[in-house]
């Protein structure tokens, strides 16, 4: 390799070399501007035994940032790996810590899935921010050796009536639609929530799932000395460099060079080609290790590959293909240009590697070599600009136990429940006024958060691939993995920020329970968990308390359900000024189904079926949609969650589904029974007659609670007459409370007895028109 051949005559380039760093220990460095604290900077000096060169400083600063090092969250994330039983690890092929966890789903297949945030870029430039969010998570999945097979998106926007919301909504949805559709990945679900707490800080989380044969698993490591390090895909440009540009300047004040733009522009076409190219490289077995380039770009990929592989690396930075010749070495190290991958290729496979990338017209360059030494050397021409132990950059960043404080507002918030709000009178209930109560049903199902999300999801391709078994508006997304046996997976994600604000520990468990239930009602068996923890500033002790509570809730919940967390992502600093968002831990549950043909529809399709409510309804309206939409209230304590019961319920659904007893199943969550009934009837336009009195009598609740309570552990199912006895017997044998609450019919109407009768066309128009009216 001609990577380091001496050229003559040698002309120093003026960059800050390691030699220069050793010779000028007193030189002032802008570490604070790069986000490093005094003690962090001093630790770098200690590690190196000198001041860092400006390139080294760039690498440490970005790799030790919150985003890359998880320095505030690490001590809490550990419990996801600790609160597990051997049984929970049984199906885990790769656990936390890698680009994404990998789960064995049987028949020689494995799947890998993960959810990640792209919140801040999506506020600055919603279209590109959201688009590159999808691109980034898909590359994580690809890196594991998997073919990405689907995406999902979890969105939180500000108040619908705020004029800025439309800008963000349009940009984000267009961006996800553009990037995901161009990649040819079906969008199989997601979440859309509007709340003013997200006004200046929308959340854009994206999930991707991929499938692979067991033997195709790839890891991000460089362990064999002599292997080549190859950067391929898009060229490196000035994307997402932001503040690092200050390094290139002599003075660090405002008269320095103009800051490079912090946004990245995505090219989904380049990524689609990169996916096919990588899959062909994997099939030909020419890469020994692979890493995608995301946050921190080349700094991250080189140091992680070397650190993971227990080896070192020698890199010639001038060999990086650039889009812009004016880039400095520091900027090249930091650039977050999209659609790039770094492969570790044994020399003997170079020819085969080149043939494949050339076929796909993907550009590449050999930028370095794996070495048998615990060192990462990076040269700029003949000059050495980085000379560090890779582990200190990639894995030994600072870890903080930040101060935690019980929020000053918490007790008052919890005390102000729906029974004492409104000056001690409690939120008014229209139990005795049927027309008012019926109006609340329509008000709620047409409110932006409860309305049909078709205006958004119709902008996403749910068909591509030909394997989508369930997508919107069903409870979970489901895709077939094996075309020969029908083996498939289901995924649902959930998070309720209002519940989490009231009680982050319970809130995280509730999100887990809901996602778990959504997977179960689709007919799949829940198997693994991913998460994206969206919180305010970790430097605020009250936020840190929320984080501590939520992670404990999630870890405890997973242990109770017996499904492990396989990976995730943390997003801090989601706030406007000092005001943090509601804690929003998005929880994704993955389930497996032996044959997707067995999946359960979420709505009613046949007349004359009986409708059963499984589970018990309590008067749980604190934090509910009813309290928000009808009363504009948030206070009290969220519903109680009983995970042992959720598990029992899921097993009962699975058993009933295996015996073919269920015509449909839909879980109850936000806005309770009223919402579920409306969705079941509108899904295929099947009418129904429902009665509430038996719920009220058996469970001792009033009509408001029967309709709108958000008690957990409840599912609505429809069952053909011929299966009635068998089904009820199955529930009773398993200790699942079961109550017949209605029948389906061809009336074209939904009747809730003694309350109201709605024409389905009208009800559908109310439920489906809202988002189009707001944003169309």
């Amino acid at each position, binding site marked *: 390799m001609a990577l380091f051949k001496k050229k003559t005559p040698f002309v120093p380039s003026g960059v800050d070399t390691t030699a220069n760093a050793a010779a000028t220990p007193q030189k002032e460095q802008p570490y604070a501007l790069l986000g490093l604290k005094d003690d962090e900077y001093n630790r770098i000096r200690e590690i190196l035994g000198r001041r860092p060169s400006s390139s080294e400083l760039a690498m440490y600063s970005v790799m030790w940032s919150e985003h890359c090092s998880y320095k505030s969250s690490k001590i809490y994330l550990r419990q996801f790996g600790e609160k597990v039983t051997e049984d929970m690890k049984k199906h885990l092929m790769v656990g936390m810590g890698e680009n994404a966890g990998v789960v064995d789903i049987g028949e020689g297949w494995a799947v890998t899935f993960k959810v990640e945030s792209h919140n801040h870029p999506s506020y600055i430039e919603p279209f590109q921010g959201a688009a590159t969010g999808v691109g980034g998570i898909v590359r994580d999945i690809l890196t594991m050796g998997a073919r990405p097979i689907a995406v999902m998106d979890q969105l939180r926007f500000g108040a619908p009536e705020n004029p800025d919301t439309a800008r963000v909504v349009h940009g984000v949805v267009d961006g996800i639609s553009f990037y995901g559709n161009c990649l040819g990945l079906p969008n199989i679900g997601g979440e859309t929530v509007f709340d003013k707490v997200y006004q200046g800080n929308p959340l854009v989380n994206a999930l991707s799932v991929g499938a692979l044969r067991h033997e195709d698993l790839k890891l991000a490591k460089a362990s064999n000395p002599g292997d080549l390090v190859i950067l391929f895909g898009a060229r490196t440009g000035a994307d997402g460099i932001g503040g690092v540009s200050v390094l290139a300047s002599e003075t660090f004040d405002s008269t320095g060079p103009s800051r490079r733009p912090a946004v990245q*522009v995505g*090219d989904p076409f380049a990524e689609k080609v990169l996916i096919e190219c990588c899959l062909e490289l994997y099939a030909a077995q020419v890469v020994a290790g692979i890493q995608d380039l995301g946050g921190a770009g080349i700094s991250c990929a080189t140091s992680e590959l070397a650190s993971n592989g227990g080896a070192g690396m020698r890199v010639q930075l001038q060999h990086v293909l650039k889009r812009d010749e004016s880039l400095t070495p520091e900027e090249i190290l930091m650039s977050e240009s*999209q659609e790039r991958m770094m492969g570790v290729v044994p020399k003997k496979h170079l020819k085969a590697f080149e043939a494949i990338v050339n076929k796909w017209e993907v550009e590449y360059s050999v930028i370095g070599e794996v070495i048998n030494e615990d060192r990462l050397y990076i040269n700029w021409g003949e000059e050495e600009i980085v000379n560090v132990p890779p582990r200190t950059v990639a894995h030994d960043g600072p870890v903080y136990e930040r101060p935690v404080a019980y929020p000053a507002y918490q007790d008052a918030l919890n005390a102000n429940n729906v029974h004492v709000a409104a000056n001690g009178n409690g939120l008014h209930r229209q139990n005795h006024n049927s027309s008012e109560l019926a109006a609340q049903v329509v008000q709620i199902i047409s409110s932006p958060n409860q309305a049909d999300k078709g205006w958004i999801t119709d902008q996403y391709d749910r068909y591509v691939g030909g394997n989508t078994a369930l997508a919107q508006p069903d409870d979970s997304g489901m895709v077939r993995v094996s075309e020969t046996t029908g083996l498939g997976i289901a995924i649902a994600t959930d998070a309720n920020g209002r519940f989490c604000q009231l009680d982050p520990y319970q809130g995280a468990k509730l999100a887990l329970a809901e996602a778990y239930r959504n997977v179960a009602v689709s007919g799949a068996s829940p198997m693994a968990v991913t998460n994206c923890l969206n919180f305010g500033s970790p430097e605020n002790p009250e936020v840190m308390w929320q984080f501590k509570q939520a992670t404990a809730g999630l870890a405890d919940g997973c242990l109770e359900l017996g499904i492990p967390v396989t990976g995730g992502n943390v997003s801090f600093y989601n706030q406007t000024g000092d005001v943090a968002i509601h804690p929003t831990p998005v929880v994704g549950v993955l389930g497996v189904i032996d044959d997707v043909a067995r999946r359960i529809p979420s709505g009613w399709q046949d007349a004359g079926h009986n409708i059963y409510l499984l589970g018990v309804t309590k008067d749980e309206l604190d934090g509910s949609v009813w309290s928000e939409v009808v009363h504009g209230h948030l206070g009290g304590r969220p519903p109680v969650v009983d995970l042992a019961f959720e598990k029992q319920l899921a097993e009962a659904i699975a058993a009933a589904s295996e015996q073919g007893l269920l015509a449909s199943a839909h879980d109850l969550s936000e806005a309770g029974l009223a919402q579920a009934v409306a969705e079941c009837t509108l899904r295929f336009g099947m009418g129904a007659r429902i009665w509430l009195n038996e719920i009220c009598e058996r469970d001792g609740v009033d009509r408001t609670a029967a309709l709108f309570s958000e008690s957990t552990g409840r599912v609505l199912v429809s069952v053909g007459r011929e299966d009635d006895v068998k089904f009820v017997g199955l529930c009773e044998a398993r200790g699942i409370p079961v109550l017949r609450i209605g029948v389906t019919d061809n009336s074209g109407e939904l009747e809730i007895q003694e309350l109201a009768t709605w024409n389905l066309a009208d009800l559908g128009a109310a439920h489906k028109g809202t988002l189009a009216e707001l944003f169309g």
Partner: protein
Amino acid sequence: MPKIIVEVMPKEVLLDPQGKAVANSLHRTGHKDITAVRIGKRIELHFDRPVTEADVAAAQKIGESFLSNAVIEDVVAVTVEDN
């Protein structure tokens, strides 16, 4: 009818995937001397009355605030055409 033409281009330092794809295609068909291609928008604002200074100033403002996104694009020209 007179019109004001606002021209918007992607910022120089940012990736322009469209331009890149077109450049590649031109290279494949032999136009090797074209070193790069960048693609932006040409937006015509039509009027049915003579265009004033104030209109041009307004067009410039609309161009910067609405027709382009300042984070990723620049308004490179605002011109009047009368025919």
